[in-house]
């Protein structure tokens, strides 16, 4: 294990932020700490980095207990949501900072920084100041700065949180590729389930200061441990007292075993997908179907359809 956090407790004043949190991050993995804001994920990341002291619990990095170690000596790379760019230094000096602190020879620093500049596609910007870069460029610089010291683990706190949607998407794919190239154990915090599913190979869902579930994106999405995880990872609707994903609902014109009668209230076309809003007795539900199916069934407000969870659908009883 590259990182092990054991039984971490942390409170700010009277507010408990982490309650008996244990997380294991395998070497070389790309792990997402996913959860709603205020769920404790950033605090956990900061505890791992040593920027925050846990009230109790142990942090191990590469097998060594670092709980009482200062952040300087943990050999972690940390990337902040708002970049924390050193405003008074050029891009080159920002990236070189950690190496200069470690008193590496000048020519070695020069070589390493240029490698990294190339890696993050900032070669032409070496002499610029952070203020002259775009948000995405600053974030890539911050990443290169963290990677420069060859950290044991790379920790990213909402790395794309401050960027606009388009840049965000590009950087996600880029981070995935970068991780495939560099292979450093990486943990990133996000509140965006799509981002976590797309980028990470392991997802840890944190809410209310507790770990709700951890596993591969596939596991967490398809076998949610509880209602919270199911709701947080994707859209859900309620059918006959069970939670089910709207794309797992089967719509038929005639009754089928286990199906229920529903009245179509609204049909919304979203590109090739169609969102069907229905009334089942005294409950509302919705389903996501393809355009072809919607046309075959001639779905229109006021029509009656029959609905049931599809054969492979994962459902969860509403508690």
């Amino acid at each position, binding site marked *: 294990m590259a990182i092990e956090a054991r039984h971490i407790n942390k409170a700010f004043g009277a507010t408990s932020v982490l309650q008996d949190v244990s997380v294991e991050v395998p070497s070389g993995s790309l792990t997402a700490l996913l959860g709603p804001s205020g769920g404790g994920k950033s605090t956990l990341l900061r505890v791992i*980095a*040593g*920027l925050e002291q846990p009230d109790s619990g142990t942090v191990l990095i590469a097998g060594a207990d670092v709980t009482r170690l*200062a*952040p*300087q*000596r*943990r*050999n*972690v*790379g*940390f990337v*902040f949501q*708002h970049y*924390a*760019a*050193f*405003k*008074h*230094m050029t891009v080159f000096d920002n990236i070189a*900072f*950690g190496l200069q*602190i*470690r008193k590496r020879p000048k020519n070695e620093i020069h070589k390493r920084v240029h490698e990294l500049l190339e890696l993050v596609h900032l070669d032409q910007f070496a002499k610029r100041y952070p203020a002259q870069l775009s948000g995405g460029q600053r974030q890539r610089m*911050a990443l290169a*700065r*963290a990677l*420069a*010291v060859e950290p044991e683990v790379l920790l990213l706190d909402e790395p794309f949180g401050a960027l606009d949607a388009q840049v965000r998407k590009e950087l996600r794919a880029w981070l995935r590729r970068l991780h495939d190239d560099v292979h450093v154990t990486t943990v990133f915090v996000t509140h965006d389930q799509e981002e976590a599913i797309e980028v990470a190979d392991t997802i840890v869902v944190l809410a209310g200061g507790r770990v709700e579930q951890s596993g591969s994106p596939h596991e967490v999405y398809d076998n949610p441990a509880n209602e919270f995880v199911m709701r947080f990872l994707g859209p859900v609707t309620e059918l006959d007292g069970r939670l089910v994903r709207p794309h797992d609902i089967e719509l038929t014109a005639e009754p089928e075993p286990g199906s229920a009668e529903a009245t179509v209230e609204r049909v919304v076309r979203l590109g090739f997908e169609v969102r069907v809003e229905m009334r089942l007795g005294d409950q509302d539900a919705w389903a996501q179907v393809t355009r072809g199916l919607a046309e075959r069934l001639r779905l229109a407000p006021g029509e009656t359809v029959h609905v049931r969870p599809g054969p492979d659908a994962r459902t969860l009883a509403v508690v």
Partner: protein
Amino acid sequence: MAERSGVTGPSVVSKYVLRVVVLAYLLFLLVLPVVLIGWKTFQHGLGPFFDALTTHEALHAFQVTFIVALWAVALNTVFGVGTAILLVRHRFPGKRILNAVIDLPLAVSPVVVGLALILVYGRFSSFGGWLEDHGIKIIFSTPGMVLATVFVALPLVVRAVVPVLEEMGDEQEQAAQTLGAGRWQTFRRITVPGIRSALAYGIVLCLARALGEYGAVAVVSGRLVGQTQTLTLYVEERFQNFEQPAAFAAATALALIAIVSLLVIKLLQRKAD
């Protein structure tokens, strides 16, 4: 702005009335005094001005002034930066009180500052007497003048640095820490460059105040001509002794220092923004 004020601002007449009232007020209170300083300086050419400033007493006063000011600025800079970091980056009980105490010197008359220091460090106080018995003379000597100057200029560096530290946040410092920088390295390579302009601004402000302090220094120095006489004391002494040219030459020198400080401060303010 001028066009827009036509829509909602005061009418044209009241605009000009306001402008004239304000300009007249500033003319008599501010502009004429500045003009007078300039006129007095160059009235008889620069020669007599420099002659008056290079007498033995004047040079000595310059020397005393700068020694006291440099000590006071150095002490206030160290204290100011340290306290600003304490206030912004740390938490501890009694922070509110410390915050309020720092502004206290602004509300205290310079003369009261002098009196306060005499009561503690003067020869007739128990502490001051004890120090004097051990050969340490504070009142009527340089240390007392430094203390008085530190007192009156105390909040200037703190108040210049605090808002910039707050705005800067601590993420850059944390980033430096995760990259392996120790406390001192982080301070020197990240914090100091981050507050550079504000710190320079605070230091200039402090220096201007230190060079120009009169009341507090008048009390604690004993005004010993040729020994503890600073420039401001020299101005007053020469004036009272009807040596107007000497008084004016020194006053002009001080005014020039003030004006230069003011311009530097404005420049640094603009840079800090």
